[in-house]
């Protein structure tokens, strides 16, 4: 029982971490590219890295934080224009080739020793050089706290049955929310939206009741900002894709020539989508480095593929898919790792091997997902297309 509690606690901690939120924001951007417009962007990590560099380098060199944020967005904006101008008139595959190589170029330039005064080369920029301004904005005070002041240990001394019932309830609430979102009716009536929101709040309370995670105030501050940004980005995407502009995006995903024959400037709309998704990526990159450091190798190809896994898991071309997918992806991976570390003896699998094992399982899971449920958890099968 304690083992299970330990594993689930670790999963909740990972699900809540600012890096999960950061990846969720980047996946929201990737969803605009891949899910709604059908742009095969294989370099979302480069948008993240550019956002992080713009943000960190500016602040490190004494500029105010707001300028750092603008520089981060500016870098991603220019990157999107440079990538899009030659490729968006061609077939989708070319964008994929160009983005994957451009992402590697950005990473290698970041690693280069020539730019050590700006990027810190391969060692990167330690967080202490740029996070002070952000930490100073915190209104969470000092010390450490858990999010709600009581937890399972306060009820019947944390007896096993309290936790088991709680876990079942959590699973039930999450399933209900997912079902509600999948039917797509979540936003049709105010009552329904309110009900979903209520279930959401109940679910959050239950989770914090069952898995108390004590953090320093500054750590809560990063998490608070990161998740607030995730929900803000989700709202922005919701507003964008329900509009005629979003309809044109989906039309382009289906058939560019048809949209062209209807008098729409396909190139301009694709460019707008590439830029918007890239800006989300840059924001994700800035959040990603708030609780760690800017390291070019931490934002490489593998991060792009994690983004795709999270997107496909949650469901491409859905509003909440990216968030759900990111949370499940990171929490699930940690869960696999902890289970392997707890239950598989060291003679079979060492501590380091559990890390690799978790990635193998994730890779296999992605393959199974694409084969058996290509629309993801929230996706609509009839709207799904992989013919980019």
């Amino acid at each position: 029982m304690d083992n299970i509690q330990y594993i689930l606690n670790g999963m909740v901690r990972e699900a809540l971490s600012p890096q999960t939120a950061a990846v969720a924001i980047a996946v929201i951007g990737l969803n605009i590219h891949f899910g709604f417009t059908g742009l095969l962007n294989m370099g979302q990590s480069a948008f993240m890295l550019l956002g992080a560099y713009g943000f960190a380098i500016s602040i490190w060199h004494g500029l105010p934080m707001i300028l750092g944020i603008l520089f981060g967005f500016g870098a991603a904006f220019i990157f999107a224009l440079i990538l899009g101008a030659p490729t968006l008139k061609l077939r989708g595959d070319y964008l994929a080739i160009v983005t994957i190589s451009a992402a590697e170029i950005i990473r290698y330039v970041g690693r280069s020793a020539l730019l050590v005064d700006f990027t810190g080369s391969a060692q990167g920029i330690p967080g202490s050089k740029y996070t002070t301004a952000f930490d100073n904005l915190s209104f969470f005070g000092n010390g450490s706290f858990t999010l709600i002041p009581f937890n399972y240990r306060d009820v019947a001394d944390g007896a096993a049955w309290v936790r088991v019932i709680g876990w079942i309830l959590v699973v039930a609430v999450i399933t209900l929310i997912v079902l509600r979102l999948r039917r797509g009716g979540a936003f049709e009536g105010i009552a329904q939206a309110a009900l979903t929101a209520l279930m959401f709040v109940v679910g959050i309370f239950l989770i914090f009741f069952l898995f108390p995670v004590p953090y320093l105030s500054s750590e809560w501050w990063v998490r608070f900002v990161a998740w607030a940004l995730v929900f803000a980005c989700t709202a922005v995407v919701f507003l964008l894709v329900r509009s005629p502009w979003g309809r044109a995006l989906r039309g382009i995903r289906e058939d560019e020539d048809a949209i062209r024959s209807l008098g729409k400037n396909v190139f301009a709309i694709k460019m707008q989508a590439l830029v918007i998704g890239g800006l989300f990526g840059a924001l994700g990159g800035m959040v990603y480095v708030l609780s760690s450091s800017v390291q070019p190798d931490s934002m490489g190809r593998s991060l792009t593929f994690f983004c795709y896994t999270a997107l496909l898991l949650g469901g491409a071309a859905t509003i909440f898919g990216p968030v759900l997918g990111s949370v499940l992806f990171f929490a699930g991976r940690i869960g696999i790792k902890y289970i392997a570390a707890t239950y598989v003896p060291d003679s079979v699998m060492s501590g380091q091997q559990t890390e690799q094992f978790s990635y193998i399982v994730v890779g296999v899971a992605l393959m199974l997902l694409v084969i058996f449920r290509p629309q993801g958890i929230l996706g609509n099968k009839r709207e799904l297309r992989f013919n980019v």
Partner: protein
Amino acid sequence: MSDQMAQPTAASGMADPAARRALTGGFAPEPGSAKPDPILVVDNIVRQFGGMTAVDVGHLEVQRGLITALIGPNGAGKTTFFNLITGFDRPTTAGKGAHWAFDGRTLDKTSASSVARAGMVRTFQLTKALSAMTVIENMMLGAQDQAGENLFKSMFRGTWAKQEREIEAKADELLGRFKLYEKKHDYAGSLSGGQRKLLEMARALMSDPKMIMLDEPMAGVNPALTQSLLGHVQSLRDEGMTVLFVEHDMHVVRHISDWVAVMAEGKLVAEGPADTVMSDQAVIDAYLGAHHDTDLGDDALLTDEAIEELEEEVAAEREAEEETK
């Protein structure tokens, strides 16, 4: 030509068959003939794929308000010609003498989307219904000048909600006319082939085009639906729209077209009213074949004598051809 232009028949409604016959009777039945009020004028369009010349049209005028059919054998360059004038392809002669103008506006360097915005909307031979979107979404994509398609306005519903309602009302009306209203919320992918053709035509009409270009609108459509499609095409003409269409079914061409242009091996080889063109020897040789009036499903043709007779004729033709070489 200028005195003809003064005739009231040219631009006004062409609903009266007698008026149409009177008008087309004035055109010279020869390739590249001048029309009193051309909505589309094409000059010197050549498209080569490597060494092969797919399209080589010297001059073509399309009269406003009429149904013009473009016929020709497979590989004659009809669809390529469509692609060229609608901006989906660029002529090899671009910048070297290729000119085409629509409704007085030069389109030499215009992109496909601007051509559509100028009022010349096309459909495709292989229907491009957006199958993972609903019928009504397909329709609403066809409307022009939507405020909500501006990225900065799109997030604020207030800036486009009213226009959206107007567009939807218009789409509903067109769907009703094309008998697709019950399918409004179905995915376009669930429609039959013929219904997709209807949807594509209706979607093209959402932009209130001046001229609609249909690429094989009747291909793969059952006879009953063909009848209704023909009715729609004719009613478009009667409302003052110009129609240019590619079609292989000669009955269709004869039935609805006011004027026929024939292409073969990329060139414009004949023009004229349907009946005249179809009895033209060049057209028969290039396209229709000597037996185009014969019903190949007729049992009488299946007798041995009839087949022998046909074989003899074919052999004689081949000999004649070899002699001329």
